[in-house]
């Protein structure tokens, strides 16, 4: 029984830790399938986290925080699309710039609102839910007790995006654009419109993942609280083979490594080593798969 509880605890923790990475990672898959690199995911998550905290603070309602985070994500996505598509910005460089802006701007805004350097006040946290009846089942009842709706939401988003990408016209066209934008344009696909859509959806999902950190997983904003998850999301997308379900699974794997760290903190397993795992796995996968990586052929190329 004790082992069962341990396993259940590990799994629920894995799911909780996977949510922000998975949301951002699914967003990365969508935008990269359209051939657009976005290295600014880390910064978008950070701004989303702040948007969530501010919305939740102003309206004393966590769902308003989610709404403001989504608006933030959409706004950044539109701006990003404008710079990258209309003005043909260097996609890798502009993403780095976005990260630096976000790390500074969030702290400036936090100081403006809460008069504190680098940390917000306490904001309304999203309440957890328990499923009636199911929660009473021994052991697996834990999955249905005091959980955030975000875990279910993330699974649904992954399923929907996966279905959308492989089973709908929109998704197949999106993939065609990433493989060969010129051919796609010749076939009459409005390439720029599709790309704008993919960028905005990707950016919104990243912002949502950020908001999860500030108002679902905790109840305040801390400077640089995203702590590399944006880059882990990019790694998860690669490991997952540039598709939403793969991104979700890779995120779960990385989150499992993080959960291990909490479970084994008693035996002094060094923090840094467990944090390194996602990066090392991704690097090994990249090198191992090598030339056979299934990256969209025209990733980062507008044409």
């Amino acid at each position, binding site marked *: 029984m004790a082992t069962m509880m341990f396993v259940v605890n590990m799994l629920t923790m894995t799911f909780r830790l996977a949510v922000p990475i998975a949301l951002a990672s699914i967003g990365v898959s969508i935008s990269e399938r359209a051939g657009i690199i976005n290295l600014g995911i880390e910064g978008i998550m950070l701004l989303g986290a702040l948007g969530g905290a501010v919305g939740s603070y102003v309206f004393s309602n966590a769902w308003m925080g989610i709404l403001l985070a989504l608006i933030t994500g959409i706004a950044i996505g539109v701006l990003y699309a404008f710079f990258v598509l209309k003005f043909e910005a260097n996609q890798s460089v502009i993403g780095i710039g976005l990260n*630096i802006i976000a790390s500074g701007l969030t702290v400036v805004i936090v100081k403006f609102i809460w008069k504190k350097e680098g940390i917000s006040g306490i904001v309304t946290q999203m309440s957890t839910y328990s499923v009636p009846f199911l929660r009473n089942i021994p052991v697996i009842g834990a999955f249905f007790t005091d959980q955030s709706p975000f875990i279910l939401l993330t699974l649904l988003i992954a399923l929907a995006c996966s279905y959308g990408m492989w089973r709908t016209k929109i998704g197949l066209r999106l993939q065609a654009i990433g493989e060969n934008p010129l051919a796609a344009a010749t076939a009459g696909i409005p390439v720029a419109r599709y790309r704008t859509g993919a960028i905005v959806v990707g950016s919104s999902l990243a912002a949502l993942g950020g908001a999860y950190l500030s108002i679902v997983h905790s109840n305040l904003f801390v400077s640089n609280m995203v702590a590399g998850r944006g880059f882990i999301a990019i790694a998860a997308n690669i490991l997952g083979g540039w598709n939403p379900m793969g991104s979700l699974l890779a995120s779960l794997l990385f989150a499992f490594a993080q959960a291990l760290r909490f479970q084994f903190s008693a035996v002094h397993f060094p923090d840094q080593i467990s944090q390194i795992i996602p990066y090392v796995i991704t690097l090994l996968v990249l090198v191992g798969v090598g030339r056979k990586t299934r990256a969209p052929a025209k990733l980062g190329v507008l044409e």
Partner: protein
Amino acid sequence: MTRNRKYLEDVGFSLVAILLSFLLVAVIMLILGYNPIEAYKALFEGAFGSSYSLSLTLSKSVPLIFVGLAVGFALQGGLFNIGGEGQIYIGGFVAAITGLLLSHTIPAFITLPVAVLSGMAGGFLWGGTIGLIKAKLNINEVIVAIMMNYIAQLMTSYFVNGPFIAAKSMTPQTEILPLNLQLPKIIPNTQLTTSLYIALIMCVLYGFVMKRTVFGFEVKAMGNNLHSAATGGIYVARNTVLIMALSGALAAMAGIFEVFGTYGRFIDGFSSGIGFTGIAIAFIGQSTPIGIILASLLFGSLQAGAMQMSMMAGISANINNVIQGLVIVFIATPNIIRFAFGKRRS
């Protein structure tokens, strides 16, 4: 377009990008209810107002020059070294440990160069690995570099939190280096050390290699057109590894001289973004030595003056990151500047 006109246009772009960023941040300040004129005045005074602040500006500029050269060198060869951050940590750590281990048995005048060279070798290998993966497997160097940044930072963090932490220290850092291994200060009681001279020497060397050597010519040929460079008999794969490795060694110098100059020891997470700022430096400076020096001075002064600005105008010192980030965004988008001036896009 003639060479000179192209050059002038590039300089114009950099200036406009900088101006635009300052203007935009002024607007942000106004929206948030801060006084931008007061803020910028304090920023300027904090960066240039006294001999102390001037030396602070210079000392903040030194690591930026090294990383700016590193990124600029790779850019000239058509490669993007976003791995400066990791190379800084590896270089600084290897040099610090070498220095500490040797200092007991070997005289300082031998230990210091050996430590510096071993740190550079660390950066050379760390950067070269990125180049090797790119050359052999044709995997985008950007994503590999990002992974390696985190690995380097976390690995060195592990070492100075555990095996190499200074005795009785609460903060994760190595033992302090013996004084005779630390670089002498140019001005006493400031952070400005002779690493400034080394940075300037590297600028001269960089200019010489790019302008006067066959290797520099090959690098530029690769940056101009990879295919014609290969057709012209340049060993593209070998040079890709070499360029990234040398770029890594240059970036490592930023870390090495922060350790041996500014701090006197390796401190966990000391770089906090120098590697990424270097990208902005190289782009603004158009990868030329003079441009890199000027851009480093600009960003060094931003970092030096930020505290004063925060105290006088009440705004968070982090606003300087917004300025830096915006400069990067605008530099990465030359078309937006052409558009603003009503020029047709090329």
